[in-house]
Each structure stands twice: as structure tokens, then as C-alpha cells.
């Protein structure tokens, strides 16, 4: 996977580059908006990470220009402006996700993977399946090993969110935003309790392998290893 990082701050850029390389990405960096726009025309990149405030051409304008050129490349904005309103603005300009500084690196990794995968396998399938775990979007039935699982509406939504991102790390913030549509950090571990409830329904009763994993320091992942 090839990432273009458009970030003017050298220190931030070098940390991010290092971290992304550690995680198996190939990273190129542009120092300002104009250079970034020029480089992003190259089809070799799989995703862009764009700082919101850039010299010469700011992040939002860059994204707007790119989208005008019909580029569908996944884009994540990094910004020191963390308001919900700013976020909405960023998404409106055509970004796929918006991350406020300071962010945790695992949050960036999870979201980066999510936007890249979304681009690669948007399915119109009405059944989401991972291993022997199946979720039927039309009948709202969930089953594992052929056995029907009774889920509360919120548990169903949570599982759907995870099943749409199979074998991917999703962070607590992503779950809170995606499932509850809240944009704040609770001081307590509310999400963890919801996950463990879900786990007790989709993992514990079954003989098969564990599927819902806790990713230390990052979040959760629904995995299936053959």
C-alpha cells in the first residue's frame, strides 16, 4: 500500500512516516499543498493523509481540486481544529475521514485501513459473512455455526459495523461515531462493556475460535483465521 503524506511540519511528518512504514505502508511525503496536489495526481497512491493547514494551498482546497478531477482516492484529513462542525466541513469537501490533532497513531492506522478497504470492497451484498458468522441485512438475522443469535438492536448495529470491516482494527472512537453517532470521548469505558456483551453472544456460546478480539492500545477487531 502506497500512502502520500502531505504535511508541512517536519517532525510530525517523520514520526508519521516512521510509524506508517513500521505498519507496512510505503510512504511519500509532500511539504505543501501545491506539491501535494501535483504528487497526488500520480495513480500509484492508495490513500492520502492531508494536513488541514498547509502552506501555498490549504488541505480543504487541495481536496476540493482533487475531487473536481474525479479522483476517488481515499483521503484522511489531519487537523488541529477538532470541532464537529469542522469535521462536517472536511467531509463535505470530499474527505473520507477527519482526525483531530492530537490523535493516537493507532486511531490513524485503523481509520486509514478503513478508508482504503472501503474503497476496495464496497459490497452490495445483502448478507455480510465472516467465517461461519452471518448477518442478513434484509431479514436482520444473525447466525453462527447455523445457530440463530438473538441480538438487541444496538448489538446488531455494532456487529454490522464490525462485519463491514472484517479483519480490521476499529477504535472505540470509530465505534462511538459509527454506531451511536456521538462525537465526544466518554470518560468511562462504555464501549468495552458493549463489546463484551456482544462477545458473550457471538463468541462464548460457540465451540469455534474466538472472533471478536481486543487489540491492545488500539481497539477491537473481528477476525477469522482459516
Amino acid at each position, binding site marked *: 500500500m502506497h500512502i502520500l503524506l502531505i504535511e508541512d511540519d517536519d517532525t510530525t511528518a517523520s514520526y508519521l512516516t516512521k510509524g506508517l512504514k513500521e505498519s507496512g505502508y510505503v510512504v511519500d511525503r509532500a511539504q505543501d499543498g501545491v506539491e501535494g496536489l501535483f504528487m497526488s495526481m500520480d495513480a500509484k497512491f492508495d490513500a492520502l493523509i492531508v494536513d488541514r493547514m498547509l502552506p501555498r494551498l490549504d488541505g480543504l482546497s487541495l481536496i476540493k481540486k482533487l475531487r473536481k478531477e474525479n479522483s476517488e482516492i481515499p483521503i484522511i484529513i489531519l487537523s488541529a481544529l477538532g470541532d464537529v462542525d469542522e469535521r462536517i466541513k472536511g467531509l463535505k469537501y470530499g474527505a473520507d475521514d477527519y482526525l483531530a490533532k492530537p490523535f*493516537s497513531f493507532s486511531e490513524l492506522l485503523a481509520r486509514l485501513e478503513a478508508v482504503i478497504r472501503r474503497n476496495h470492497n464496497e459490497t452490495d451484498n445483502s448478507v455480510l459473512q465472516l467465517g461461519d458468522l452471518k448477518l442478513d441485512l434484509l431479514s436482520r438475522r444473525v447466525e453462527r455455526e447455523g445457530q440463530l443469535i438473538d441480538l438487541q438492536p444496538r448489538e446488531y448495529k455494532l456487529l454490522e459495523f464490525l462485519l463491514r470491516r472484517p479483519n480490521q482494527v476499529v477504535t472505540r472512537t470509530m465505534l462511538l461515531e459509527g454506531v*451511536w453517532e*456521538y462525537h*465526544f*470521548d*466518554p*470518560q*468511562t469505558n*462504555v464501549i468495552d*462493556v458493549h463489546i463484551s456483551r456482544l462477545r458473550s453472544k457471538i463468541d462464548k456460546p460457540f465451540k469455534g475460535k474466538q472472533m471478536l478480539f481486543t487489540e491492545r492500545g488500539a481497539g477491537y477487531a473481528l477476525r477469522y483465521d482459516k
Partner: protein
Amino acid sequence: MEQVTLYDMINNPFNFVSFRLIFIYTVLLGLSVSLVLMFLYFTTARDIELEADQKIIKKVEDLNNIYLRFREQGLFNYIRRETSRATLDIYRLYDSDDNYLAGNILTELEDIKNNDDGWLEFSYKVSENGKDRIFYGRGRELITPRQNFRLIVGRVVNDEKVLKERFFYSSLWSILLILFLGVFGGYFLSRNFLKRISDINRTSKKIMDGNLKERLPISRGKDELNELSSNLNDMLDRLDTLMSNMKEVTDNVAHDLRTPLNRIRTNLEITLMSNPNLEEYKKSFEEAINETDNLIKTFNSILSISKVESGASDLDKSELNLKELIINMHDLYEPITEGSGIKLNYEVTENIVIKGNYNLLSQSLANLIENAVNYGSTNIDPTINVGAKQTDDKISLWVSDNGVGINDQDKEKVIERFVRLDTSRSLKGSGLGLNLVKSAVRFHEGKFQLIDAKPSGLIVLIELPNCS
């Protein structure tokens, strides 16, 4: 700007708007009064002259008739008869050699002006008690065709002339008086006005010099200047509140963030010193990351509070259903409360649609529920109720618990930023939760209070105006 002194005003009155305005106004007023008076003068004077002239013309006609019938002798007799009694008419009859024959003026006429329209203007002196008195006359000259006698017929116009002169001079004086009163009155009025402006200027300068508690003077009455001062004062009050808020936040941030920062630093430093193995390194780093995460959360809370407090206009309000909001919140927190043996109930029956900021309200509710979970669950059978109700004029929203509650003297305190009661110090939290609720409620133009629950516990009651 320096204070305006009398000296400045006298030297440079045109530097002052008010003086300039008053001067222009006075000149315009003077001009228009002059025009009116001039018009009156000319029409009145014309009338007076016309009346005198009519009489003379009549007299000339009479004399013409007499001449046609009795010739020069008739004129002579007529004049002798007329001049034997007191009259304002003037007659002087000369023969063809310019010898004075008859009339009622004994001295020679002086300053004779022969106007183009056939009228003569002249004056003559009469001795009265040894003093010369000057009379003014106006008349016409007739020459008899046969013997070339010359006759001057006229009238004394002293009264008319005096009237005209009086009129002229009183007009002139009135205009001068108006100009004088205008300029000096304007000067004094504007000095009063300028004094108020210079008071405002002086106070502004004091404020600029850092004396931020100064306020602009407001004199009695209700005029534009007072309104301006009062508006500026309101603005200064608002700025002052914002400034002190900001100062308070900065102070608190400095104080409250120093502790975790110090923990991080010490932790990392000791890890480095103690020749750790890989596991210990990892553990130390994880601790540091957790601490920084908490710092970031605190920062984010401060930022959102500040944004709400500053009345940010870009926080939008949209229609939202409080019932939905409460059920969603209940849904989010129910598992965690159940895990700790706390009952979380919601008490809302009807849909309550309000205009509000979804994120602020949900975060406020989340903070209140978390507070109740953390501090209000000391009862053997801990219960938390979240509810909403609407009446005609207001919408109530509450979170209540049956824990130990808060002392009356602490109720005010807990709302402040970073305040944490001793009982809660051991628990994690930023001390910003209730403060955000306060700001959010203020943003929605509502009230919020802490009430003792019966028999024990705390009710946080939020009341929003019912705008629907």
C-alpha cells in the same frame, strides 16, 4: 487622543465636529434670516414710497388743471394759498430767470438728485432754535410751456426715510445678533458636548492603559451619547467576563495539567535510569500514553467549554427529539451501569422536540450520567434516573441518583472548572464535567440547578425554555 482644552478650542475651533456643525448652521440661519428681512425691507420701503409718490402725482395733476385754466398767475395764487397753512407738501416756484417767486421753503434746496424716472430727491436745512435741522424731500419738476416758470412739487419724506433707516438698521442688528448668538452659543454648547466626548476619550485611554475596570461616564438623561457609552460599557463587561474566564482557565490549566505532566516526566525519567528490560519499557510507555490521553481529553473539554462559553455562533442548533436522545444515552450507558449493579432508568413518555445542539446536549447528559455512576452509587441499591418532561413554558431534563448527594456549600463550587470535591479526588476525572453542562445549558438559554433528592442523593435539573 488628548483631552480637549478650552485653549485647543479657541485656537483651533474648526478641528471639532460639533463646532464646525454649529458654525455652518449659524451661517445658514443668518443667511436665511437676512433674505427674509431684505425681502420685507424692500417690499415695505417700496410701499411707503409708492404711497408718497401717489400723493405727489395727484398734486401734479391738480396743478396741471389749475395751470390750464389760470396760467402762471393761477399757480402763483394757488401756491400762496397752500403755503399759508402747515403742510407736508413742498412748493417752490421760480420764474424763467430762476428768481424765487413763491413756496414754503426759504432756504435753497441742496443735494438735488435727478432720477432717471423723473423724480427728484433733495434735502434742505431749516433753522430751529439756532440749530439746523435737515429735511428730506421727494418730488417732481414742472416747467410751464408759456413763460418757462419752473415749479418743484414734492413732499417731506423724513418720516418715511427714518422708518426705512430704522428698518434697515434693526434688520442689520438682528442678523449680527443671530450670528453672534449662534457662534458663541454654539461654542458653549459644543464645549459642553465636547467635554463629554473628551471624558469618554479620557476613560478609553485609561482602559487602553490597562485599567480594565474603568467604565465610560454616563450622564443624566437618555441621548445618543449616553446610549453609545452604555453600549460600549456593556461591550467592555462582556469582554471582561471573557477575559477573566480565560484567565481562570489559563490558571487552572497551568495548575491542573502540571501534575499529570510531572507524573509522565518522572515515570519516563525513572524508567530510563533503572536499566529496564523490554517489558518494563513497554509498561512505562503505555502508562505515559494513558496519561497523555487523559491530558488530551482534558484539553478537548477545555476547548469545547471555551467555544461554547464564547457564544460561538457557528455552533448550530437543529431540531432534535429529547426522548430519542435520552433513550440513546440510556442504551449507551445501560450495560456499564448494569455491570456495576446500578439501575439506570429513563423517565420520558412523550416526544419532546426542541431546537438544540445534539452534540452538546448528549455530551452533557453523558457527563451527568458518568458523574452519577462515579459519585452517586454509594447506596446499597443504587439507582439513576434520566428523564425529561415538557410543560407549556419550559422543558425539564434531569439526571438523579440516590447516593450521598452534595452539601449545600459545595453545590456552587462543583460547577466551577477543575473543582473536585475531596471525596472524589481519588477517582479519575478532569473536574470539567459539570462546567461543560453549565456552558451547554447557558448556550441553550436555560437554567441548571443541583437539588437534594429525597431521602438521599442528587438531582441535576436542567430547564430549557419551551419555544415550540
